[in-house]
């Protein structure tokens, strides 16, 4: 049976893992390859690197990080942030990544999803959707809008409609982040997740709001997510991947047991 994945996410700037709030007050937290390897040994089912390097400094640094990580952590690796063309995606994949996640670039140029899926297969193309709740009108269905640039810019896209369209265009997976919950540790927006997961056939990764193991259970059970991503709770060692998986297993969710990854 297909296991529900637990995915730690690492923010990377200039080749180093950083921690900060809203892209400011960044502190150096270590080497991405080392941290990825540690997470892999602790039971991570996949690693996501989010490149938050300023665009003009980017070229090459992330590729080296990916290359070093893929040489020592034998788990799936997804890279998000800053990839804007088929050729850039090719370079990231050739460096050792399995998937590339598109966010702002996909909103700006939706055909990029199609071009990359045709070249590398849809399984390598992840569409990251940052969604924010819209004020709910009386008796109307809850709606979410797509936001970009880390939540700083709004779009006129409906998040559910964009999710459906992104899959039609070629995305093989959706990484759905609630911008209302991101960084708040108030739990995932399971209503948003299930609204999307019930409309698409591709796997949905839940993101934004994890406070503890029970939230991972809720994201899968109520949000119908196939995988759950979190950054700070793992990074700050508030909870281990093992604790999260133990809670998921106790709730009857299929997981890949920790023993299968302990080196």
């Amino acid at each position, binding site marked *: 049976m297909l*296991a529900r994945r637990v995915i730690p996410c690492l923010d990377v700037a200039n080749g180093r893992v950083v921690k900060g709030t809203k892209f400011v007050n960044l502190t150096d937290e270590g080497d991405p390859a080392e941290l990825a390897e540690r997470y892999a040994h602790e039971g991570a089912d996949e690693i996501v690197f989010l490149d938050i390097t300023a665009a003009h400094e980017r070229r090459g640094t992330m590729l080296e990080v990916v290359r070093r990580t*893929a040489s020592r952590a034998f788990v*799936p690796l997804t890279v998000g942030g800053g990839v804007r063309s088929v050729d850039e995606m090719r370079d990231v994949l050739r460096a050792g990544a399995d998937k590339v996640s598109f966010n702002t670039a996909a909103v700006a140029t939706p055909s990029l999803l199609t071009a990359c899926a045709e070249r590398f297969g849809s*399984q390598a193309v992840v569409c990251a959707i940052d969604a924010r709740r819209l004020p709910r009108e009386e008796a109307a269905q809850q709606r979410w809008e797509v936001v970009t640039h880390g939540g700083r810019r709004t779009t006129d896209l409906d998040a559910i409609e964009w999710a459906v369209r992104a899959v039609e265009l070629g995305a093989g997976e959706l990484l759905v982040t609630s911008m209302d919950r991101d960084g708040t540790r108030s739990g995932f927006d399971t209503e948003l997740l299930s609204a999307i997961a019930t409309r698409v056939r591709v*796997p949905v990764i839940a993101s934004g709001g994890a406070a503890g193991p029970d939230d991972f259970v809720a994201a899968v059970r109520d949000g119908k997510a196939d995988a759950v991503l979190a950054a700070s709770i793992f990074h700050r060692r508030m909870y281990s991947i093992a604790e999260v998986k133990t809670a998921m297993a106790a709730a009857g969710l299929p997981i*890949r047991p920790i023993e299968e990854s302990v080196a």
Partner: protein
Amino acid sequence: MSGAVKIAVVDYGAANMVSITKALAAVGAEVVVAAEPAALAGVDAIVVPGVGAAASAMTHLRERGLVEPIRDWARAGRPILGICLGYQILFDRSDEGDAETLGLLAGRTVGLVDAPTLPHIGWNTVEAVRPHPLFEGVADGSHFYFVHSFAPAPAEESVIVARTTHGRPFVSAVARGSLYGLQFHPEKSSKAGLRVLTNFVGLVAAAVNAVAPSAAEVA
């Protein structure tokens, strides 16, 4: 024969070459990347990796003159391992793009049936149909990493080593003599995956020793 077994990983533009070459090196193999037939000289085994579409994979293999050398290699009974798309193209045909593939195993690659999610992405259990040295030391039902929407339907039951279920069961591992195929990615499957690669390298070493290579073969 002394030293590590030498394994050629076929490079036909398939995306991620780093993981498979580093994983094979991590389990003790000497690895060469083969983008042309000449690079196959002197190796003990071939690995055909890959993700993507069957039709374009065959086109790229043909452009690089690798189709016939790979066929000849396998037909001579020498060790060869196909992974994911590299496994699918060991069979006669693929429904993905209606492509004619290598034809080393009878059967065709078909779309996954009744899959709750598609692509099938993530860690799924591999259930043994029969014991096989490729899975020695791996507990039955261990998780391996899958990324695919199609899988081969072998015409011969005898080649089937393991099955996995996503919707309906599909064949996730095959073996016939020194020819092996895996639908999952051992190079992305953590400890269990490295164990399978270790076993493969061991099988290659055993095959090499059984043949007792002559100087002519090495040259």
